[in-house]
């Protein structure tokens, strides 16, 4: 059940655990009704005879309003939350709202009309709300103006509600005035609503895409079928990434097409030549094309292929970790933060503690393996797939094929998971290369093994912490040195100045605890393994590290870890609300019988403050069960509480996987894990109960929702393990640590 407490000016929206679940308001769309989104979501769900009012919306003669959505649907709910924002201002009847993807080709031809088409940074609502509200408000006022002119009244005399315009006894629908409204230019754009004026945003409307996702009709990239299409299976060089120098030395030596060419359905085998940069370009490799994907994949598996391995074949995970551990004492670290004199304060402190924490590479492991479909004709190229960044996909295809970007058309499908992986577009560039070689429309699909081996992983990191604890148990100084694999050093080397990548040490640099002396520096130690944004990016590993050490500090000072955090954030009202909500809702205690424990983790990402309390039990032999995770968070405002709650659950499950079982390791330069047998994902029987409490401070705060609930989970679980067993887990995944106790 959902209940709403109004405490002073703060709103606490809580959703119950296993039993209830959030009640959805308004009507439930059903597949029996006309779909609200086309199966092919890049297509208009209705007949195309509507009147475009502005780039964001179209009104049909029957009153249907189609909202263009310029972010990609990978589960985070943008196909519902973004139209809700437009509908709020438009005063449209929600039952008449449909949605389609905005067109990236139009975007690039029309001066970036959709503003921001790359989905990431938990930014769909956070960064596009204002202009979506504006688009809806502007359309509403133009409709009112059109009616006012017709009726000989002023615009102020016209009211708009539920897609109906009224003034005195006059009445007209949006559809009736759409054509006239499209001709109207306002002398000044209307003001948009402030949150107190919302009547629709903030309600748990049912998702518009659910009907397509319960009957198998939602089109994902892997489902695209084009006339005359053939299928490609690919194998890129088993050693991924690298720099220009090492890539030149790891090559495709030979492949024997004769060995497979008589196999059923096989059409051809092609060498993929390196192109573009080393981590998001085309890697050296081979594609086999056939009349079905299974035949292509089977033939590829049987074809003899010889690779020149190059120098990166000497690299393995132990060596990479050793290099990072060694860097902890090497000179030349880039300083990011220096408040007071941390070293001096620690040296003088009553008590001094230190700890080294480690996190491995982690794969995005989207449920839908990477794929892309490309059709090249004389005057245009059509590209189909689950793009997190459609204009980026468009530009890599233009670059690969040497065609004008204006002639490339992307068709974004539903994404079978994204988490950052589908913003890289390496598979798009590769598919364009294969389609050109094959001379036919091609659907290229990676095997799961290829998906792991050509992954672009969450960076690994090793961090050393030192702290001084005063006689009163409170910290006097905190010193942090982090060794990181820098994403930015690969993707935008010019942004790394004097060895400093502030993005990589988010969570350390941005630590908000009121500790008098703080110092943070870093070393970058990159390897050939490609790295990329993972859900919540750097804080996904850094918050585990620092929030575990903060618990060590509390412990060393004899403090309760919950109260310690409350005391160290007392000037920050949002942290206070979140922590106090968590304390109350979780029934916080450090007094559980041995073998059970509660732990806390706290983080901020993309403007949203999140705290979690995990309850675990550990058997004497060391088997861990995470029983429950209570989450309190402040993202300022909610567009759709039910969707937001789902994102919290989703992030926690992924964070729990990172904490306990996820790990990508490297041997002979290659990714060891190839499928879900070696890279397990959290399953139903490992699920804790998750309870979510939105503790909202409102005001100007609009924090992100898709990622921020991930980072605290690993720390909360690790800290709970400490209270259960007395054992401090200092590396992810925890499955490597012996948790037995007696």
């Amino acid at each position: 059940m959902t209940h709403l407490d109004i405490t002073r000016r703060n709103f606490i929206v809580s959703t119950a655990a296993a039993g209830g679940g959030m009640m959805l308001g308004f009507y439930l769309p059903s597949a029996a009704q006309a779909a609200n989104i086309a199966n092919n979501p890049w297509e208009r769900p209705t007949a195309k005879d509507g009147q475009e009012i502005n780039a964001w919306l179209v009104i049909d003669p029957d009153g249907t309003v189609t909202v263009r959505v310029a972010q990609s649907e990978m589960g985070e709910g943008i196909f519902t939350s973004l139209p809700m924002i437009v509908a709020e201002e438009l005063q449209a009847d929600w039952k008449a709202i449909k949605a389609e993807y905005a067109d990236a080709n139009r975007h690039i031809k029309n001066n970036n009309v959709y503003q921001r088409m790359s989905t990431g940074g938990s930014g769909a609502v956070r960064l596009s709300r204002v202009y979506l509200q504006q688009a809806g408000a502007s359309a509403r006022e133009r409709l009112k103006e059109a009616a006012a002119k017709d009726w000989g009244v002023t615009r102020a005399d016209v009211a708009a509600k539920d897609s109906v315009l009224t003034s005195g006894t006059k009445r007209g629908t949006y559809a009736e005035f759409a054509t006239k409204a499209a001709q109207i230019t306002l002398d000044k754009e209307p003001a948009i609503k402030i949150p107190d004026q919302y009547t629709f945003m903030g309600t748990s409307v049912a998702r518009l895409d659910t009907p397509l996702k319960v009957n198998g009709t939602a089109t994902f990239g892997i489902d695209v079928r084009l006339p005359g299409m053939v299928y490609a299976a690919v194998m890129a060089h088993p050693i991924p990434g690298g720099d220009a120098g090492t890539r030149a030395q790891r090559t495709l030596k030979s492949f024997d097409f004769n060995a497979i060419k008589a196999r059923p359905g096989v059409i051809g085998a092609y060498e993929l030549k390196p192109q573009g940069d080393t981590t998001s370009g085309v890697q050296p490799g081979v594609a086999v094309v056939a009349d079905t994907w299974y035949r292509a994949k089977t033939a590829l598996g049987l074809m003899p292929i010889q690779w020149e391995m190059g120098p990166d074949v000497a690299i393995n995970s132990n060596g990479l970790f050793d290099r990072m551990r060694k860097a902890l004492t090497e000179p030349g670290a880039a300083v990011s933060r220096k408040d007071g004199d941390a070293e001096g304060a620690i040296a003088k402190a009553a008590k001094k503690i230190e700890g080294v924490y480690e996190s491995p590479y982690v794969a995005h492991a989207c449920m839908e393996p990477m794929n892309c479909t490309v059709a090249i004709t004389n005057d245009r190229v059509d590209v189909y797939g689950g793009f997190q960044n459609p204009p980026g996909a468009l530009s890599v295809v233009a670059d690969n094929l040497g065609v004008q970007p204006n002639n490339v058309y992307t068709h974004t499908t539903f994404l079978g998971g994204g988490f950052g992986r589908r913003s890289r577009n390496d598979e798009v560039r590769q598919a364009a290369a294969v389609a050109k070689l094959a001379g036919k429309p091609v659907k290229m699909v990676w095997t799961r093994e290829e998906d792991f081996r050509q992954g672009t992983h969450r960076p690994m990191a090793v961090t050393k912490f030192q702290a001084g604890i005063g006689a009163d148990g409170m910290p006097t100084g905190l010193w942090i040195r982090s060794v990181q694999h820098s994403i930015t050093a690969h993707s935008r080397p010019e942004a790394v100045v004097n060895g400093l990548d502030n993005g990589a040490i988010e969570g350390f640099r941005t630590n908000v605890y009121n500790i008098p002396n703080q110092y943070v520096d870093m070393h970058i130690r990159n390897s050939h393994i490609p790295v990329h944004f993972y859900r919540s990016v750097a804080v996904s590993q850094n918050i585990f590290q620092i929030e575990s050490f903060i618990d060590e500090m509390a412990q060393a000072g004899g403090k309760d870890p919950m109260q310690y955090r409350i005391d160290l954030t007392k000037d920050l009202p949002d942290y206070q609300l979140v922590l106090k909500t968590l304390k109350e809702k979780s029934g916080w205690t450090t007094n559980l019988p041995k073998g059970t424990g509660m732990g806390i983790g706290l983080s901020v990402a993309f403007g949203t403050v999140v705290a979690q309390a995990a309850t675990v039990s550990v058997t004497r032999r060391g088997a861990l069960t995470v029983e429950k995770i209570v989450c309190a968070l402040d993202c300022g405002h909610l567009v759709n509480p039910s969707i937001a709650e789902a994102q919290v659950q989703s992030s926690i499950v992924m964070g729990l996987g990172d904490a306990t079982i996820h790990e990508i390791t490297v041997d002979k330069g290659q990714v060891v894990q190839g499928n879900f047998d070696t890279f397990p994902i959290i399953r139903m029987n490992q699920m804790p109960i998750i309870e979510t409490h939105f503790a909202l401070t409102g005001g100007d705060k609009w924090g992100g929702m898709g990622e921020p609930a991930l980072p605290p989970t690993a720390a909360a679980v690790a800290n709970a393990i400490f209270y259960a067993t007395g054992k401090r887990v200092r590396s992810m995944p925890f499955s490597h640590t012996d948790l037995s106790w007696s």
Partner: protein
Amino acid sequence: MALNLTVNGKAYSVDVEPETPLLWVIRDSIGLTGTKFGCGIAKCGACTVHIDGAAAKSCNTAASAAVGKAITTIEGLSADSKHPVQVAWTEIDVPQCGYCQSGQIMAAAALLSKNKRPTDADIDAEMSDNVCRCGTYQRIRQAIHRASELA
């Protein structure tokens, strides 16, 4: 070689190697793409269909082994998305990205057809072959309980 298969009550003759996994016959030869490919090694459940009413992973079922049996895919579970599992899934808004959901729904429907009132432990036992990277498990559990009330 031609194999005769019955999918969602319709007869199909497909020209594939007999060892071809049923998954690829359903998706590429027959063109029903609601059944998904996740791993190909029976470790994720995205490809779950019903064979003679029981949940089966179509990625490791040879097409030849399904000859003469009734194969049901997500498209054939109901004509109008009104199977209790689909209704419950819609009420609770279970799917996120949705990619695993055909498999989850088919697995849940098979569970409920043999166990009308599954406990949480039954759900853990029967649904743990189906991976969801979006972590929709809590709502899946709620929706199975809800579907069991609706059925």
